[in-house]
């Protein structure tokens, strides 16, 4: 029973990480832009709406507003940062520098405007546990697991079957040549950033509801998302979902049986071992570059 509880808690944590990774994966898998400001942009949306309300039914309205804001911010970042840089013909390392700059900027501005104190949604009803047998589960746990599953599956279906998905794959399979051209391409990539940011926002919001966040959360949020995506195999939704769940389980198990201090160190080392053994990630979707 006890082990089962640890497993369930791990899957919940993993599902939230899975959302973080899903948004990052969409952006990275499509554009190959290493969007290191990913978590920072999401954090902006979060702080904007948490100043509206942190508790009661208005908090849900705030989250709704945050979703829209994160959509807008995602598109905006593409429109005013990445698209112009691509137009200037900047190579990927330089685009990374810009992303790093944006992250640094946001990391200074947010704690400057809002206090660097921890912040949390106070929603008791979401965190009230009920028991299934001896297993304690909260509505938020259910939402996290179901949310990440549903969002992953729908994204997968959209990419596989919709027209949008087809065009997106056309861009992915040939980022440089861009078989989808011009305004249409900009529109698709803009939506990719918008949707990716919004998915990430959902994950971060759940984290804020179950525990608390500080204005430095963005770094670890991006890092965990990036590690899961690369560890799972860039562009592979299945791979990153599996890695995310494993991540959550290992972290919860290690917290309990080793110590909270060493738990994340253990997971990070596990990640390093994974990508050293399989540099293409768990599920490879990119063919190896040849001469």
């Amino acid at each position, binding site marked *: 029973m006890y082990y089962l509880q640890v497993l369930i808690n791990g899957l919940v944590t993993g599902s939230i990480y899975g959302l973080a990774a899903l948004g990052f994966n969409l952006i990275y898998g499509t554009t190959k832009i290493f969007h290191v400001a990913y978590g920072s942009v999401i954090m902006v949306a979060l702080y904007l709406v948490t100043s509206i309300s942190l508790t009661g039914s208005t908090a849900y309205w705030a989250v709704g507003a945050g979703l829209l804001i994160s959509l807008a911010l995602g598109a905006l970042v593409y429109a005013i940062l990445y698209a112009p840089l691509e137009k200037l013909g900047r190579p990927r390392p330089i685009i990374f*520098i810009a992303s790093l700059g*944006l992250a640094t900027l946001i990391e200074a501005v947010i704690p*400057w405007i809002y206090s660097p104190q921890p912040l949390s949604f106070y929603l008791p009803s979401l965190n009230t546990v009920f028991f299934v047998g001896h297993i304690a589960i909260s509505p938020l746990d259910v939402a996290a697991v179901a949310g990440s599953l549903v969002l992953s599956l729908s994204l997968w279906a959209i990419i596989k079957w919709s027209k949008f998905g087809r065009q997106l794959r056309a861009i992915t399979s040939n980022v440089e040549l861009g078989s989808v051209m011009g305004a249409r391409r900009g529109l698709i990539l803009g939506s990719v950033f918008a949707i990716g940011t919004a998915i990430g926002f959902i994950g971060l919001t759940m984290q804020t509801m179950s525990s608390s966040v500080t204005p430095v959360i963005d770094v670890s949020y991006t890092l965990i998302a990036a*590690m899961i995506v690369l560890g799972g195999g860039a562009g592979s939704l299945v791979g990153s979902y599996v890695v995310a769940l494993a991540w959550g389980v290992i972290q919860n198990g290690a917290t309990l049986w080793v110590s909270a201090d060493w738990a994340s160190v253990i997971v990070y080392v596990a990640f390093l071992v994974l990508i050293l053994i399989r*540099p293409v990630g768990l599920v490879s979707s990119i063919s190896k570059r040849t001469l």
Partner: protein
Amino acid sequence: MIYIIQTIVIYSLTYSIAVMGLSLVVGYSQIFVLSQAAVFGVGSFTYAVMSSRNITSDLLIVIPVAIVIGGLLSLVTGLPLFRLGGDYYIVASLAFQYVIIQGLVNWTSVSGGPPGLFGFSSPSILGWNITSNMDFIYVLVPILVLALGSLLWVRRMPYGRALVAMADDEAALAAGGVKADSLRVGVFVLAGTLAAVAGVLFTSFLNVASPGDYGISESILMISMVLVGGSRSLIGPFIGALFLSSLPYWLNLVNWSVYMTGVVTGVLLLLVAFFLPDGVAGLATSWVHRRRMHEQSRQASSVEPSLGGQS
């Protein structure tokens, strides 16, 4: 006032040593390393531990020890470069950064935990106690000159020639019998070693070593020094280190928020990406380079016909 200037000089010289090698890594192998602060921190703690346990405070002993530790650590964190590149290494280096510093925090018996170590004896060299700011500058300058000299030497030698070639075309480099991965790991270890030395100097000056000072944001600051200054030239990191390491002091003088440092760094990185891909120093070098190209292609076009007539 003179005290502040001395402090700023000490900071910039220390950071210059810390990021000098990094500029070779970024500039020639296009690898972004976000774990430099961790090696810097390990150098710091090498001094802090040796000094606080009364082993020795003599820099002539501590620095070689830090070189060995920093070198080995960089070798371990650099070996993945044989298999990973690009974005993969960015993430791997962030993971290393986290693991090293968190490991240090958790290893309380050595590091003193989150507060770190402080209040140990000031450094010395063969019995000469280094106490005043000026003393520190006297120590820093020769070390800096030595480090810079080594890097200039490396650049002039076949190794440096291979680095320049690697930046352009790894396949053509391999066709000439040189393996890019080994070059990359080499500069990476060199960069880490210099950072560890800088860490020793930093902590021996400040008399504290706290793991929190060597986190991811410090690594970002260090790579920003390289990128803003310009990674393709050896003067670049100096410009970056001088400006960014002294920034908090300038802001303090005008009573601006500490957050301004991050704002300025972020904006500078954005400006670099949009307008100055080779950093501030790149402005000058690209001008010289263009001149040289221009001169030579003019020469070439005027010489060509007569040569053609001969053959």
